[in-house]
């Protein structure tokens, strides 16, 4: 989360604080603002923070918060387009579907980053990642293989990589 990702140990401290504060915020959302509940909220947020650090160690790389936000802000709009797309196909009497699986080669290395990208893909209109082939290309199930799916995915990938701090230098 921190801007200086060079030294992971130094970056980890503000990252941990940010996580702790986010969990505390979530606690506040769950239970309401009454300060008395902090008795349980502080240890709960600390425990959640510890679990999160164990399962998801601080990244050694820089994240661009603004670019990540740009990806997240697009989600509701994408969700709308995706839903309209499905609704149009489902409700039309002719049911226009040309389903098929497209292989999409991604530069995102396997691991958490790619898994996050796949989760994002599954929320995009008309695409659903269903696995990977032997060469590590993503297999994307599409409602309509005639659409320029790979082009659209490449655009999304570029946006996503700007968020994880790798977009600018490839």
């Amino acid at each position, binding site marked *: 989360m921190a801007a200086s990702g060079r030294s992971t140990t130094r970056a980890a401290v503000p990252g941990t604080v940010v996580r702790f504060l986010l*969990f505390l915020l979530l606690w506040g959302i769950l239970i309401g603002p009454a300060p008395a509940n902090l008795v349980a909220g502080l240890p*709960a947020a600390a425990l*959640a923070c510890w679990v999160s650090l164990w399962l998801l160690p601080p990244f050694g790389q820089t994240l661009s918060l603004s670019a990540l936000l740009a990806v997240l802000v697009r989600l509701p709009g994408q969700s709308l387009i995706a839903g309209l797309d499905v609704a149009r196909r489902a409700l039309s009497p002719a049911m226009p579907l040309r389903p098929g699986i497209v292989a999409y080669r991604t530069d995102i290395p396997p691991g958490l980053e790619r898994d996050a990208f*796949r*989760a994002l893909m599954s929320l995009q209109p008309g695409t659903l990642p269903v696995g990977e082939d032997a060469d590590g290309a993503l297999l994307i199930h599409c409602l309509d293989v005639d659409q320029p799916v790979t082009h659209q995915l490449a655009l999304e990938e570029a946006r996503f990589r700007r968020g994880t701090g790798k977009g600018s230098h490839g």
Partner: protein
Amino acid sequence: MSLAVDLVMVLLILTAAVWTILARDRRDAVIAFIVLGLLLSLVWMRLLAVDVALTEAAVGGGATGLVLLRACARLLPVEADGALPGLRLQVAVGVLCAVVGACLAAVILSPPEPAPSLAPAVAAHMEDVGLKNPVTVVLLAYRALDTLLEKVVLVLGLIGVWALAPDLFWGGRPASLRAAVPSGTLTFLARVLPPIGVLIGIYLVWNGADHPGGTFQGGTVLAAMWLLVMMADLGDPPETRALRLRRLVAVGPALFIAVGLAGFGMADGFLSYPPGYAKPIIVAVEVALALSIAVILGLMVAGPAAKEPDQ
């Protein structure tokens, strides 16, 4: 309008319940049972029993599916021949189930008029305990003995599960819960969701004192998160002989019993609380119980030891 909603709910529940029985494939039956659990949660919500609805959402949505589908996977090698029980046994089981069902229906359909209720008595004495959720007050103050025995039963159940292990493996690790095929999606979920789940689980426990929620709901959510981590292979099931683990299993019931015994000296008798201190004592017992429930449920799904203990 509300009659129509009730009819729809009854129809859906009956569909799911009948299909659970009729489905030929065991896994199909489990899926129908999961659906039934979700529907029951909605029914409890409709009946304004929010505590029960929460329990059903947590147990039905999280735990039942895991327990039963794991059982399916374990049963397959045992029943590979696929022989159905004989006709006579089938008929006998059917008749017995029908009798039990009819008795239950008779009891439920013929309540005395007006239905007996202790609700006004509970409402009249709420202030003595200092909590605002009547369900928690009943569970941990007026009927504390039932609640205590319920938790002890859980411990006994776990001992029963553990006892299935061959002598050689006693104290060892349960079989891994790892998914048959590793999945990046599962790993992603298991890295992101558990911290949020831990927070929500604790919230359900803490909130249970004054609002719907409580130990069982929170404990189940915590157990589900732990199981998710184990299934994604981010952590192995612990050795069943580990002392720390066994302490966690025992801490809830033990604290409950200790508080109960202390009642002899400090209040009117077993499981009665000293006046003025009911709330903090109940909250402490709830926290310890939630911890124990989470660990016990997780260990029950993990199953008996399947490996020799490490040297």
